[in-house]
């Protein structure tokens, strides 16, 4: 709080000289925020209104049903999504963070191959997700013969989020002041000890926020799963990594194309659940950031 007041008064002091420009700029900033949040609020109101009649316990207690849309649920989709995200986190986060540590702390940036790797990671972050779906279908599902299972889905999504995890983890490591490293090394710690005991703990909030935002993006993906043949009607929860599965975005997609009105209400209710899971994950990100944040 003390930090917040200082720049605010500084802005006010500077603003006294040219009030008109200051006002215009501030209004421009504020309206950008209002537009962004306004659309989000509109979406939320619209979806909750549409899905309200079906936001009941049957939604998560029952399995989807083509025959009884009025009592159909989305349990298999909720569990499928949670399985995929948990497994993706297990695979993509350690790999991504270790890759980031290598690139920031060990890699010699004057070497051309390290710069090539960096460039490629940035490019991969912009590849459309359907391309990862094709890769997953050809490489993981068919060539590695993993079939259309939770494992295939999670591995594909891991590849999809890996570049984002690496980039955000690198930023977090970069944000650790060099004085911390230098101090640790000066006290006789090895490079490994410095990274493990000083750099990584200090970078946790940034890495956690970036990773969870990357996983949140993965939750909403439907395109790669369409390629991977996540079946649209699955009336059982995944029992392991080799089980068939479906995810919420696929279910929503299939509900919307049904002819009966009840399915459209069900789709809206499923969207609310998807948003609730997203909100929970983002809340965890904020909590982690606040919990571990250090100021130097």
């Amino acid at each position: 709080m003390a930090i917040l007041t200082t720049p605010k008064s500084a802005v006010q002091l500077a603003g006294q000289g040219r009030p008109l420009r200051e006002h215009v700029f501030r209004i421009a900033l504020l309206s950008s925020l209002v537009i962004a949040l306004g659309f989000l609020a509109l979406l939320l109101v619209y979806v909750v209104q549409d899905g309200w009649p079906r936001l009941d316990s049957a939604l998560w207690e029952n399995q989807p049903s083509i025959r009884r849309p009025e009592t159909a649920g989305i349990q298999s989709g909720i569990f499928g999504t949670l399985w995929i995200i948990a497994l993706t986190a297990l695979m993509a986060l350690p790999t991504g963070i270790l890759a980031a540590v290598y690139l920031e702390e060990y890699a010699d940036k004057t070497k051309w191959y390290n710069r090539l790797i960096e460039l490629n990671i940035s490019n991969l972050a912009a590849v459309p997700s359907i391309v990862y779906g094709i890769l997953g279908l050809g490489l993981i599902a068919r060539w590695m013969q993993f079939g259309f299972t939770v494992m295939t889905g999670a591995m594909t999504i891991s590849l999809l989020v890996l570049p984002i995890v690496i980039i955000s983890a690198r930023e977090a490591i970069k944000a650790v002041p060099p004085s911390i490293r230098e101090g640790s090394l000066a006290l006789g710690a090895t490079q490994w000890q410095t990274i493990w005991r000083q750099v990584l703990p200090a970078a946790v909030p940034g890495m956690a926020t970036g990773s969870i935002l990357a996983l949140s993006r993965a939750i909403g993906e439907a395109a790669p799963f369409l390629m991977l043949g996540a079946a649209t009607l699955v009336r059982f929860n995944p029992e392991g990594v080799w089980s068939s599965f479906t995810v919420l975005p696929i279910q929503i997609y299939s509900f919307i194309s049904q002819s009966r009105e009840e399915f459209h209400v069900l789709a809206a209710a499923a969207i609310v659940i998807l948003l609730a899971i997203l909100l929970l994950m983002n809340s965890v990100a904020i909590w982690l950031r606040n919990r571990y944040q250090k100021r130097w």
Partner: protein
Amino acid sequence: MTSGQRRLLGVATAALVVSLSAAACGGNAKPSGESTSAAAPAESGSAAAPAALSGEVKVDGSSTVAPLTQAASELFGEEQPQVKVPVGTSGTGGGFEKFCAGETDISDASRAIKDEEKAACEAKGIKFTELTVATDALTVVVPKENTWATCLTTDQLKKMWEPGAEGKVNSWKDIDAKFPDEPLKLYGPGTDSGTFDYFTDAINGEEGASRKDYSPSENDNDIVNGVKGAKGGLGYFGFTYFEENADTLTAVQVDSGKGCVAPSVETAQNGTYAPLSRPLFIYPSAAATKRPEVAAFLDFYVGNIGAIAKDAKFVPLNAEQEAKLKSDLQALKGLAG
């Protein structure tokens, strides 16, 4: 700031924890709805109470046939809860691709298998049988305000939809001088659809040949809404979609030279609704049929086909087709050895 965030977080966490634990407790024990529904089909006759099977029967393919197989999967689940039958909707072509790669056990199809798909299956040594499980009547619809187009000949439909009509046939008057000068607004499925393939083949004489300046959509609800919203609108899709929207849309009768015929369960069944009534298929793999859970699912599907079709609001087979379906399945089992 932080306290506000913390409160928000608390609420969100509580909500999700509650919902997840409810999901975990409610769990699989409770099937959706009650199983006392009138549609719950009778035992298929010959077999005694079947032993509890487990395993997975993988189905993929046409999104038109999927609701039927999904209904079969649900009803079968009441009898064999341990057998999982996931049903995908990759489309007829996408389904055959997976089927001929040996990745699925049964493929749903809204058209017969093509020669190149057959070759792909043969290359992998996959034997199969074509089973006709239901009939569909491709329905041409106009909005209720349209009072003039109660019956259209196949020639008139061709005039509207043929590639040459593009940019030229823009008013109902262009089709028949007796029709009013109302702008013609066409809606139909996209080019990836089996419905599109069938309609263009039956009306324009060549599969895939269609004017391109219509509003295509993979989602039939868009076609319903488009036609509903324009007085001069016209579109086509499966009979089930028309039945769901019969209060706002009129089904046009089709005259293929033998008089006007309205699409209905009867006319689709006896084939008089020509040329737009079409068979819907499933293709089970012979090798998969050896597995008891696949055989049990197929027995159930074929044995209760009438009840399943009625339940999923499909046009059921007539007695003759149903008898053929049953003998085809027996032949497939012979093939499997």
